[in-house]
């Protein structure tokens, strides 16, 4: 390992340790535990639930979606999946209970907004797939897989 990399790693470890000290020294142990549960829970949710769900989704796409549409469907899923995850707090509207009389918070129709976004993604995926199918029909030798 070069000295520069070693130095960089050392700086990272020190900064990390400072963060750990900040977390530990400024809060009650119960708060630190709660934060650790949230961080650990997020890792588990990702590594077990979301990752396995994506594996299953991959199998479903491979099994049900015609080859020519798989690329567009996967790209669409990356976009719509990201939008949906980011939208969980507003779609659920959980924050409204914190400030019940605040009409300027969470003041959009998020379900309608999400449906519009989903509609756009689905439409683009469909049009893109049809264009690819037509192109493949005209040029049967150009595959959709990368070379």
């Amino acid at each position, binding site marked *: 390992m070069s000295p520069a*990399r*070693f130095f*960089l*790693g050392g700086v*990272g*470890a020190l*900064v*990390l*340790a400072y*963060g*750990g000290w*900040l*977390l530990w020294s*400024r*809060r009650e142990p119960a*708060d*630190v535990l*709660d*934060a650790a549960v*949230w*961080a*650990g829970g*997020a*890792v588990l949710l*990702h*590594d077990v639930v979301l990752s396995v769900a*994506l594996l299953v989704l991959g199998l479903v796409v*491979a099994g049900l979606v015609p080859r020519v549409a*798989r*690329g567009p*469907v*996967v*790209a669409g899923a*990356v*976009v719509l*999946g*990201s*939008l949906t995850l*980011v*939208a969980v*707090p*507003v779609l*659920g509207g*959980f*924050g409204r209970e*914190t*400030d*019940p*009389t*605040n009409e*300027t*918070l*969470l*003041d*959009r129709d*998020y379900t309608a*907004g999400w449906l*519009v*976004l989903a509609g756009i993604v689905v439409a683009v995926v469909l049009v893109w797939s049809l264009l690819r199918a037509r192109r493949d029909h005209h040029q049967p030798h150009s595959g959709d897989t*990368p070379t």
Partner: protein
Amino acid sequence: MKAPASLPDQHSFSSRLRSAAISARVGTALAVCFGLAFLTGLVSHYAQNPTQPVPFPTSPAWGYRFTQGLHVISGTAAVPLLLVKLWTVYPLLLARPSMRLKRLVVELAERLSILVLVGSALFLLVTGLQNISHWYPWAFSFRSTHYAMAWIAIGSLVLHVAVKLPLVRHALSHDVEDTELDRPGATEPGPLSRRGLLRATWLATGAVVLATAGSTVPFLRRVSVLAVRSGEGPQGVPINKTAEDAGVTDAARDPGWRLEVVNDTRSVSLSREELLALPQHSEELPIACVEGWSASGTWSGVRLRDLLDLVEAPSDAEVVLTSLQESGPFRVTLLQSGFVEDDRTLVALGLSGEELVLDHGFPARLIAPNRPGVLQTKWLARIEVRA
């Protein structure tokens, strides 16, 4: 896939999309987002500190609006980037541990540092997105915990970059379809090319930004259908906390309300009419919330400095502002001398040419340039020069 009898390991994943060539590229973008969020977060944390060895600047007036908007935007943009990044490296999570002790210790240390990195990064994004929607399903204090986790995340990120630097250099200096860094067996073409997956990732990142950034970027308001705020509100400005939720409705409407301005033994007590009889000034200043939303307003009222002159406050005075609120972390705030001396700092009595509405802080509120919204004290009761 291997025979179902054996546990899956890194060789069970045959897609050539789960490649370091993609991890390095998405990881670089992710590091930029986390770096921006970290720096802007430090600015916000410092701006809220009562003690500031270097005074927080009062100009430009839109500075905090910019940095805090960027903080929330870069955190939101990191969501698709982090998910794609983790997807590409997922097989490594299931890699079999080494049987050689020395090698095993190194592997465990690296795995631990990655666990800390992923845990703190997910924590920051999840709690950040919840916080901007006022959803607090936890017991810890958001501000101090998010702050400490940010140091943990950025420290473990720097450590991770140091460990992976040769790999990242190699990946970025070769074509994205280059297979030299791939795991053996990861040769199966995916539904997309690697370039295709990268493009989908950048598209997803752009989409989440456009869908949410309208909370702080006015011209995106109409396309940001998932933004926590529409940007609308009474007198054209959204509200963080209403008078009713703060429990100040009766006290704020009391005709006997007076603003106390105190400097040691000198003090004056002013009704709203008396405040309105003093020289009035108008300033266009943003309300910029720590939650990343912001809106500009035209505020009118009395210069804070003019009020302090009534009690002969010295020119380098710091003042303590007390709200009518009976509780809450921002009931009492400290205004540093730089803000006190700035001519744009007002005790506002009006907004958008009208009398200030109750939810914006009637009968009187503070509005200062380049200051976090939570410190723009509403429903003022007392202004006292700090001894």
